């Protein structure tokens, strides 16, 4: 009897592994999520829409930072000066529902950002292994994703975007090629910002 039960169990594990592998094999960078991705998302419930006080304003020089990237190496904000406009996309945490929807949407709009000579830089307060796993599971992204884990949330704090629970706000900060902040949207953490509004702001840079 033991053999009868253990053999199908082994087959079950193999079959599920196969299913996951097949699902992963269908993954195209930036355009897919394995079936298991959504089953891994943690639902935090409804949170206080905004839980911080901005420390920067439109017209300010954007606080510089150097943060480790999930692709290795570091990203320094000021290295984009004179080269590209930058949109910092702060999201509260990896493996949460709205964040796990927001960036996969950005995955298909590289051409839109190219049109306005801009790049996204994704920022969360998660550590590199967590961020790496999350972004890999969502199918990869075309823009750099950096970790503001240590000193914890220091960059988010410099912008006034660190919440009292240690997460970052869901925020977009548009910085022009001179390093000047041109647009800030500290969004309701529970909802996704309209990409159309950001595009209108990027249009104004030209």
């Amino acid at each position, binding site marked *: 009897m033991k053999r009868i039960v253990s053999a199908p169990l082994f087959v079950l594990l193999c079959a599920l592994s196969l*299913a996951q592998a097949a699902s992963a094999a269908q993954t*195209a960078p930036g355009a897919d*999520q394995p*079936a298991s991705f*959504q089953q891994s998302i943690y639902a935090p419930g409804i949170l206080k829409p905004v839980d911080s006080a901005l420390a920067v304003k439109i017209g300010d020089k954007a606080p510089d930072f150097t943060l480790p990237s999930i692709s290795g190496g570091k990203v320094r904000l000021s290295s984009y000066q004179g080269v590209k406009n930058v949109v910092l996309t702060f999201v509260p945490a990896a493996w949460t529902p709205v964040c796990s929807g927001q960036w996969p949407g950005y995955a*298909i709009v590289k051409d839109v950002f190219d049109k306005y000579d801009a790049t996204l830089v994704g920022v969360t307060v998660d550590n590199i292994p967590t961020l790496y796993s999350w972004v890999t599971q969502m199918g990869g992204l075309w823009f750099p994703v950096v970790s503001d884990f240590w000193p914890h949330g220091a960059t988010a704090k410099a912008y006034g975007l660190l919440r009292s629970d240690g997460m970052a706000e869901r925020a977009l900060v548009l910085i022009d090629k001179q390093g000047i902040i041109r647009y800030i949207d500290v969004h309701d953490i529970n909802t996704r910002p*309209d990409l159309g*509004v950001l595009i209108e702001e990027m249009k104004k840079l030209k």
Partner: protein
Amino acid sequence: MKRILSISLLMLVLTAASAALALQASEAPQSRPIPEGSAFPNLKLSGNLSAEQAAYLGLAASDKNPRLSKIKAPFVLLEVFSMYCPHCQREAPAVNELYSLIERRGLAGAIKLAGLGAGNSLAEVEIFRAKYGLLFPLFCDPELTAHQAVGSVGTPYFYLLAKDKKTGAFTVKLSRLGRMDSPEQFLDELAAAAGLPKAGAQ
């Protein structure tokens, strides 16, 4: 007996594994799909359709917020999607192919195709259209009003709707979550549900 039991369990396991692979959708925890045979809400639609797209649905191009019942067609296939849903991104070329296949099979007069961008603004819907070169009309739903009315379903979700000639109201003929296996097979399913010829002129 032992062998029969083992084979049965093996079959069960493989079926479960293939089912897990088959459903490719962003599931919604609050989903309450409208069942087949039930009345479908007369949605207030919102979009910026071209004159050609409006004519395809029999709508006045000047009407930016037409009711669903204004669509002039025996059947409407409504895809609930989101530009933020990776499964919808992958499904987009197949839906475009389905649109062309409906025409090639001579069913363009019977089944009209339209998309509803759940939680998507007009700009986001247009980004999605441009990205995948979508040919059929898309409507936006930034506040998720229509999405809630159709059961807060996961995406992509397909409703085949049949129009009552007298009242103009729509009834659900087919209701399903997830990507289609192929446009050809899905159109066969749609035709069967609508009572239309399976294969027409190709």
